């Protein structure tokens, strides 16, 4: 399973890099969709169907929105002429990348193998959660019982996002 996930992650990285460098913006959007749907397969392989359902639906809706935006505006990427600063920016980017890679190698030395956890809190969540919350689906039990305040915050975030869109586009006051 780790090999399969590694292959899918490799394709996702290729898709993301292609999306950055594509000349046609529509193919860039489709390449980003490749990343999203690859993530769905990764979630399914990692036994997280809850996340997979949310990801596949949200990915489809955002893909439709992005394609509509690209078809409505322009398909050509804005090209900027490289100047002297681009050289220093590349060097700075490379140094930051090397530093992050160094800390990444340091961090994965202490990680557990895939599928094993060493957190004490997750054990107390998993053991007897069905009796404590009454919910057989453990994810929902955690979301709406142990961490209900988090979920309330998430719902308020979505509500605020919708309010923000309505305010920015000024639906009522434009008349």
């Amino acid at each position, binding site marked *: 399973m780790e090999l399969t996930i590694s292959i899918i992650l490799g394709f996702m990285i290729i898709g993301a890099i292609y999306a950055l460098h594509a000349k046609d913006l529509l193919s860039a959007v489709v390449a980003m969709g490749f990343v999203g749907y690859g993530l769905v397969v990764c979630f399914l392989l990692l036994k997280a169907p*809850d996340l997979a359902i949310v990801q596949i639906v949200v990915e489809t809706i955002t893909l439709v929105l992005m394609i509509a935006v690209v078809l409505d505006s322009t398909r050509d990427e804005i090209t900027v002429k490289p100047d002297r600063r681009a050289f220093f920016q590349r060097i700075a980017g490379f140094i930051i990348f090397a530093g992050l890679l160094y800390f990444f190698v340091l961090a994965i030395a202490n990680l557990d193998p895939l599928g094993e956890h060493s957190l004490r809190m997750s054990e107390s969540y998993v053991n007897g959660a069905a009796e404590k919350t*009454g*919910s057989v*689906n453990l*994810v*929902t*039990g955690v979301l709406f019982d142990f961490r209900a305040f988090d979920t*309330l915050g998430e719902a308020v975030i979505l*509500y605020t996002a919708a309010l923000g869109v309505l305010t920015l586009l000024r639906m009522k006051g434009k008349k």
Partner: protein
Amino acid sequence: MEGMSTIVKKITQLVAGLIFMYGIYIIMHGHISPGGGFAGGAIVAGAFILLILAFGSSALNLKKEVGGSSNTESVAILMVAVLALMALIFGAKVFLFNFLPKGTPGELLSAGVIPLYNLFIGIEVAGAILTIFLALVIFKEESSK
């Protein structure tokens, strides 16, 4: 934005109801099988978005629709807050406490208030996504006039 071809319209008529019903199923069975309010709400919103994309924005009165979805969303998030506050009155006087009887795990009517939270969060998510989509569509219609 105008509607699509007759084939797309006919297939949309057949499929949109099923997608809507699947979203309701995901919401109502959130405490038994994978899914829940967020996933089911997004699916319900997806059914409406499919209808609007296939039939075009002229088939519906979008101004009325966006008012309805915005109001629904507001009422749903208010109901979540009321449910959370009701736990302060009944039960153990703890915010967001599961104050209803739990029942046997695995049945449809079990897990206390969790199905109610799922229902209202689902309505809220569906309303929010639909409101954002409709607002963008109306903005595009008005700016292209």
